[in-house]
């Protein structure tokens, strides 16, 4: 039985899914049902150290850089419309490959070209992030963002982080203005 978290909630992955090694991180949202410009949402991951900044620019995983140098995080590619059942974009995290100096992996979703298209998260329905045991297919934890957003154009959905020897998941649901660029700058990526 998967753990369902509310905004701010935390769960120990070791306790929720003992022996979890390889994680399927699914991010989803409902596509636009009305006419007009499609919403193009992009999931990204930032592998950050103790400073809260990325270890290097290539530790920013997004549609143009699908794999981290250590092979610990892999992006399965861009979904341009959000159409289809289930997860709209998926990243894989191989916990065994995460270098010791990486303290947390932050998962974000940004609306592509939001300003020009006059779009924001308040217009996006049913956004979620869920962690699935990639090996067994069992859902471990899920966070439905519900209304934890409004006129923001960039969101931190959640993060997995080390605490001592174990990994935990934190349901963040924090929104920002700006797009992927400002999100990247925030985590110390040189863009």
């Amino acid at each position, binding site marked *: 039985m998967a753990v369902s978290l509310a905004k701010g909630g935390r769960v120990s992955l070791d306790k929720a899914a003992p022996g979890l090694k390889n994680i399927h991180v699914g991010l989803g949202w409902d596509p636009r*049902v009305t*006419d*007009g410009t499609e919403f193009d949402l992009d999931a990204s991951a930032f592998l950050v150290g103790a400073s809260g900044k990325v270890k290097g620019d290539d530790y920013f995983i997004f549609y143009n850089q699908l794999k981290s140098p250590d092979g610990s995080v892999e992006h399965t590619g861009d979904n341009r419309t959000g159409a289809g059942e289930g997860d709209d974009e998926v990243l894989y995290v191989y916990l065994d490959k995460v270098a010791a100096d990486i303290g947390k992996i932050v998962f974000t979703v940004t609306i592509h070209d939001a300003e020009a298209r006059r779009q924001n*998260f*308040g*217009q996006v329905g049913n956004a979620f992030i869920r962690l699935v045991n990639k090996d067994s297919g069992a859902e471990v934890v899920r966070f439905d963002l519900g*209304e934890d957003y409004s*006129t923001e154009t960039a969101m931190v959905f959640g993060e997995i982080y080390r605490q001592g020897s174990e990994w935990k998941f934190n349901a963040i649901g924090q929104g920002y203005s700006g797009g992927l660029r400002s999100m990247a700058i925030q985590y110390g990526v040189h863009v």
Partner: protein
Amino acid sequence: MDLQSGQNAPVGTGAVRVTLSADPANQAPSLDPSAILLGADGRVKGDGGFVFYGQPRDPSGAVVLDPVTATFHVDQARLPSGVGRVVFALTIDSEVAGLRSFSQFRSVLLALDGSATSLRYPLVTSGMSETALILAELYLRNGVWKLRAVGQGFVGGLAPLARNYGVDVSEKAAPPLPSPSPAPAPPSAAPPKRIDLTKRQPVSLEKPAQGFGKIAINLNWSSGEKKKGWFGTKNAGIDLDLGCMIEMADGGKTVVQALGNTFGDFDRPPFAKLLGDDRTGESTSGETLLINGDRWAAFRRVLIYTFIYEGVPNWAAADAVVSLSAPGSPQLVVRLDEHATGKGMCAIAMLENDGGCIRVTKLVDYFAGHEPMDRAFGFGFRWVAGRK
């Protein structure tokens, strides 16, 4: 507090009023407000959950539309169980030609007033090719009613919007809606009824105890520019006439109009009278046709029409407005601004005696003249050219 698209805010406790308007306001009569009551699955709760001009209240009475002011009175406490969301939309009346999309409005506004809360959602619509717009949704979240500004819509109008919420619609003429009076929930096995979105949707005027009184149909228009030529003033104006074809309950048929000097009589058959003849459009009150509603039992049906007596059939330039008002009923307003139809005659509305009630069906059908219109509606008059 002003909301922007995507933003939400709590509406406080108690019932609310939601008013939809547009700028410029004089175009607003051609906008149709609607509200859709949704269940948890985002689908309409029965066909009664679609509140619009053809059905101005839902069966629970929780959502009631005042079509004159485009205001919805919403009492959340009375909503049927399972309804956690009410969507408010504006649709361009596709039968009013000349209006193509919301880009022809500067902006639209949704104003919500509650006991302690006022929320406004102004939306600039320039550049929007949609013809149906979801302005906002009122929804229950963790026990609190909130309003979310949406500002998205459909290019194809009310039909795709309604379908999006599971309202089974037909765009062709369909059987009239069942009476919107509170009815027991239909058995779940019954096939879903189709809601007809065409303007053929009749509105039934319930019979007041004291009779319908004076039913007034008014036509007003602008005469167009008076052009000054070398040889003096040439009036390029337009003369519009108002009239009606009447079929009495006893089968008798008559026409009331200025052409042919058949002005009728209010107190004696045909119980309909045309007041004067405004030949310029400059009279502020225009032309008025009165129907004696207290004698409604003597009528079978009345076809209200207007025609261009003089001047080119350019309805857009005439900018004519026909209104129908009966005591105790919302006014029906029809704006005739069809561009260059080349047809000088327009059937405005049909009034039918429906068991003592007046069933009003808005038509806005253009014809080349009296004869083809008569044929279309099957009155069966004999026509000769007339003058006045």
